[in-house]
């Protein structure tokens, strides 16, 4: 299903199509930017910006960058992104930018990409679907994850406590608080949980698969499962290290620990995606 590419204003010229493509790319970028905005404000306000990539997950950066690359590399000419007619959907998405809420921006991106995906085909359609997934995972992290985080974080604290007890037998776990009494206690937050990062991880894995040319649900599930397992293992280990002492917390939670953690997980995503493409997983 495709649009009829006729426009009285541009006449469907190549120049007009390129400009319409630029317009929609700017619109998508603006929706993402406004979606990330509040997290960036919080990261700057709390001083965690240097260690948290301005509050933006590396998985989201990977997924958005790959979606943009795929859209930019989609064949020029009569496609959805380059359709010369600027319609009400473009206008509505643009107006949503004005809302003082990042949630509205994500919902707008979800709807905009979903609507465009219906009319697109091939790589362009998959890129729009990827943008939908980015928006959905962001909405999940802010509104869905907190609902079940209180059930999952105690389990993660329990696992971290079990790991910590291997080297510190006096380690205790109370709910989502793990640590060593009279020395240091760590509260496992939803933001530190797989509940928060898991969906983003899966989206990033799908993005990498799209980038390397693998399509289909099976490679995504295979690579996603491997990446998720690696994430859970590394995250529990990191939580156990952070719960050991104030010094260990500062190390694991600081720039070095955060960069190492993100690097390992991103590498795991790429390796799992490459292996899934080759059918080795």
């Amino acid at each position, binding site marked *: 299903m495709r649009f009829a590419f006729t426009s009285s204003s541009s006449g469907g010229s190549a120049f007009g199509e390129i400009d319409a493509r630029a317009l929609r790319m700017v619109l998508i970028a603006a929706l993402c930017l406004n979606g990330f905005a509040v997290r960036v404000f919080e990261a700057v306000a709390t001083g965690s910006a240097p260690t*948290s990539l301005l509050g933006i997950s590396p998985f989201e950066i990977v997924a958005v960058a790959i979606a943009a690359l795929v859209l930019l590399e989609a064949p020029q000419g009569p496609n959805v992104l380059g359709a010369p007619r600027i319609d009400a959907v473009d206008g509505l998405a*643009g107006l949503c930018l004005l809302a*003082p809420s990042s949630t509205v921006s994500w919902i707008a991106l979800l709807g905009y990409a979903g609507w465009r995906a219906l009319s697109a085909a091939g790589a362009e359609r998959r890129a729009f679907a990827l943008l939908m997934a980015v928006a959905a995972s962001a909405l999940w992290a802010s509104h869905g994850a907190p609902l079940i985080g209180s059930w999952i974080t105690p389990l993660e604290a329990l696992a971290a406590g079990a790991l910590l007890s291997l080297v510190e037998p006096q380690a205790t776990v109370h*709910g989502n608080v793990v640590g060593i009494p009279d020395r240091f206690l760590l509260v496992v937050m939803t933001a530190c949980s797989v509940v928060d990062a898991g969906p983003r991880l899966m989206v990033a894995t799908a993005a990498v698969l799209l980038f390397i040319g693998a399509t289909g649900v099976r490679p995504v599930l295979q690579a996603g499962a491997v990446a998720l397992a690696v994430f859970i293992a590394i995250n529990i280990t990191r939580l156990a290290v952070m719960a050991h002492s104030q010094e260990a917390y500062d190390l694991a939670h600081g720039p070095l620990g955060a960069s190492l953690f993100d690097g390992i997980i991103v590498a795991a995503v790429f390796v799992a995606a490459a292996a899934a493409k080759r059918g080795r997983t």
Partner: protein
Amino acid sequence: MKRTPLAVVMVLCLAAMGLVTKAERYSAGIGEPDHLQTIIAALSERGWRVATERTDGALGGVVISHAACPQPVRVAVLSPTHELGALLQVVAPDTVLIPQAGILGGGPRAASTEPTRSREREMIVAIGPAAAMDETLCADRILRRPN
């Protein structure tokens, strides 16, 4: 042919205006220094001394100490519905402190995409080695659960 570049500029303007509206709403909900001072003053009236200030990513807040309490207690501002607040109400009911405006740290709210909607929903709780693990708390001497 010139309409589309103009539209691009319009989208850029909308994006910038959107960022401004979000920044304004966010800054209206975030704790200003006077809120922090209010909290510190409230604690000081109850005999607590602010030892250090910190806004680390895990809890955020202020580390305070009390002459009657051998261990420092970290104060964080949380939503009553947050898991930490809920946990504290179970393991140490008296450590839930006073409702207060403002936000001291970003950790508990790091995943949020929404600015603070209602300051009435914010609440201060105390947590630390004693506060979290021992019901014979120091924290319960100073601040009580509001009625």
